[in-house]
């Protein structure tokens, strides 16, 4: 007899407890709204808007400080790199210029001029000094 009365249908585990919550939530929410509705995903966006205006303010302040520090560091590093590059390039150019000028002088005097021309370009005192070495008997 007891077997015949037994309900053959079963429900998932914890079904009635979740059903109760679901029904209460749906009826409560709908009744509270009673005709009013909100845009889609409104409450998610609302949450984000509120956080942006409250918690976000602190975060953005901290972020702005970090941003400022980071930017100043980048600025300092870029100035350092620019300065060191410009100094080294200037030195290189100077060095190159000096070498090329010395080469030019050397080449000019050695290749293009003969001894008479060199003597004509020297001062009288210099000629005396220069010629001293040649006065060997």
């Amino acid at each position, binding site marked *: 007899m007891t077997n015949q009365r037994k309900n053959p249908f079963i429900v998932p585990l914890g079904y009635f407890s979740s059903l109760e919550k679901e029904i209460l939530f749906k009826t409560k929410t709908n009744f509270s709204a009673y005709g009013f509705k909100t*845009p889609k995903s409104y409450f998610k966006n609302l949450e984000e808007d509120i956080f942006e205006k409250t918690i976000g303010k602190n975060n953005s302040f901290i972020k702005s400080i970090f941003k400022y520090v980071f930017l100043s560091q980048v600025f300092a590093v870029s100035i350092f790199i620019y300065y060191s590059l410009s100094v080294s390039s200037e030195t290189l150019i100077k060095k190159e210029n000096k070498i090329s000028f010395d080469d030019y002088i050397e080449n000019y005097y050695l290749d293009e001029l003969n001894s008479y021309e060199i003597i004509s370009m020297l001062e009288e005192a210099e000629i005396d000094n220069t010629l001293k070495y040649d006065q060997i008997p």
Partner: protein
Amino acid sequence: MKHQSLFINALRQPDSKNEAFTRLVQEYKERLYWHIRKIVLDHDDTNDVVQNTFIKVHLNIENFNENSTLFTWMYRIATNEALNFIKSKAKKMGLKNEEWTQAIAGNLEADPFFDGDEAALILHKEISKLPEKQRIVFNMKYFDGMNYDSISKILDTSVGALKASYHHAVKKIKTKLTND
């Protein structure tokens, strides 16, 4: 109450404030939204008011004296914000608060965020004709199912006065709906 004290402490501590406030918003955003929405009626206006409410909660949590529950305190802020909002809007338009509310209720059919049936529309229009305090008491009691004790703490009014307000409100609405 002990649990609430712990939570309020968390809201006041700099290292836990953000996390606690996040939980607070998640817990109360919908309830406060619907409470405000039934006072100011328009969705965009409600959005402004509900955000201001949470900003005030965030700013003034240090001044919360714990004589009431956090829930009651937040509801009180929300109610005051909503009423001040109506006051400022009505003043700008040169209207009384009730006149402004009735004007908004009169346009509910055209509101894209209202999809109630005819009964809901008529009911909201009739509610908008009630004096401010009766309207709020009616909403809190009828729609939100709050008890007089909670409403009394939120509105800082005696339970007896609230019962009288609700009784008058129900009577007016019933009379109007029966006659129409």
